[in-house]
């Protein structure tokens, strides 16, 4: 069961000055990382329950829809966006004011429509991932592009965007490279 207590305890541990400033021995740093990772996973369970109470169940199953997080977005890596032809992207704004966020999803090719909750297709852009990112040691991803769209979010609330493959828009949404010189 999801519980935020684990994260609360881990953050308390990580207030030691070694964790704050990075002066721990390497093995201790690994331990901090593992504890934080476990705490984050428990918090994600809590978020899953919240979403599942708000989302529709599928036709074929009474089970609530699955919710997937991509913790490796810092290396532009996300298995679900790289392999799916359609998915729902849930974007939650924890701030108490509206914000606009430019969402960047790792994909293997251009050619996606993004549909806002009101049914309107929203503007998209696709840009190749820079080569140094593709070469990050340990990166296990087939994504070579990023799909970009703007999410206008309500305060302390979320919007779900319907992302669906549409090869016919690939040419139009892919930004063409040009060289400075």
């Amino acid at each position, binding site marked *: 069961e999801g519980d935020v207590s684990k994260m609360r305890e881990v953050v308390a541990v990580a207030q030691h000055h070694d964790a704050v400033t990075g002066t721990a021995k390497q093995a201790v740093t690994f331990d901090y990382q593992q504890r934080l990772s476990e705490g984050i996973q428990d918090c*994600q369970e809590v978020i899953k329950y919240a979403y599942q109470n708000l989302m529709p169940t599928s036709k074929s199953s009474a089970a609530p829809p699955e919710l997937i997080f991509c913790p490796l977005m810092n290396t532009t890596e996300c298995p679900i966006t790289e392999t799916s032809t359609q*998915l729902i992207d849930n974007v939650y704004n*924890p701030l108490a004011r509206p914000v606009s966020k430019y969402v960047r999803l790792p994909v293997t090719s251009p050619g996606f429509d993004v549909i806002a909750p009101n049914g309107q297709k929203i503007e998209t852009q696709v840009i190749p991932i820079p080569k140094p990112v593709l070469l990050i040691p340990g990166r296990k991803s087939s994504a070579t592009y990023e799909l970009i769209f703007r999410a206008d979010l309500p305060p302390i609330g979320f919007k779900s965007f*319907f992302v669906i493959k549409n090869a016919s828009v690939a040419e139009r949404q892919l930004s063409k490279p040009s060289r400075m010189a």
Partner: protein
Amino acid sequence: KKAFLGKGKFLLGVDRNGRIQRLSHNGNVLDVTQDYVWYEGHPGNNSEFEFRASGAYIFRPWHEKPHVAQPQGNPIVYKGPLVDEIHMNFGFNVSQVLRVYKDKPEAEIEWLVGPIPIGDHVGKEVVSRFNTQLDTKKTFYTDSNGRQLLKRERNFRPTWNLNVTEPIAGNYYPINSRIAMNDGKTFVTVLTDRSQGGSSLKDGQLEIMIHRRLLYDDAFGVGEALNEEAFGEGLVVRGKHWLQVSSSAEASAKNHRLRAQQAFMDAQISFTPTSLSFQEWK
């Protein structure tokens, strides 16, 4: 006139190497350049107080003058309806994406550094540096305590007489979310996505340390050199800075406070697989 990024009130001019040259926000124009430099970490001898190595606890460059990472190759420009960006590489395993989103009042700099090469057996500390002509009178601001911007004055402490023996390290301060400077007319802020260290070693200049790889323990107790590895190599780090310019303290505060909030409590993204059509799902 053609070499710029952005479409709205924020425009960014670049030079032929793709580096920032000038930016304009609501008509306020600022000449600004940015480069990546690296200091050699002091190897030390770890005698008490003297010649201690640069390491996990302390930043101690061996020489005051840093090396400059030179631009490499030809930058690639991408322009589109939502964002304009330039991908560029520098020597020394440094690369960056410089981007301006439509309607955002700032330049976003996504840097990627590493693995830092140590084949020459010299530890290195990599810094992103912004240069302007602002007459900042030795003064800059950091939010070391995570609550408010505190005034910092180069080679000075407000409560004791400072004897400056290490001009670089002695002027470095912790940054939690931003470092700023102004000349009374133009207000420049660089926001970070994590806690880092930084300074203003010359008037009109801001620098932020983004990655370190050092080969000697600093003898403060950790017992290890700050030489993290993964996959048999030094770490690769990736992060973002946001560069803002405003023409008043009020406008600057509004911009950087809102941006810092959004960086700290960024929108959370998750995914749900579905085989439903949009109408069914809706």
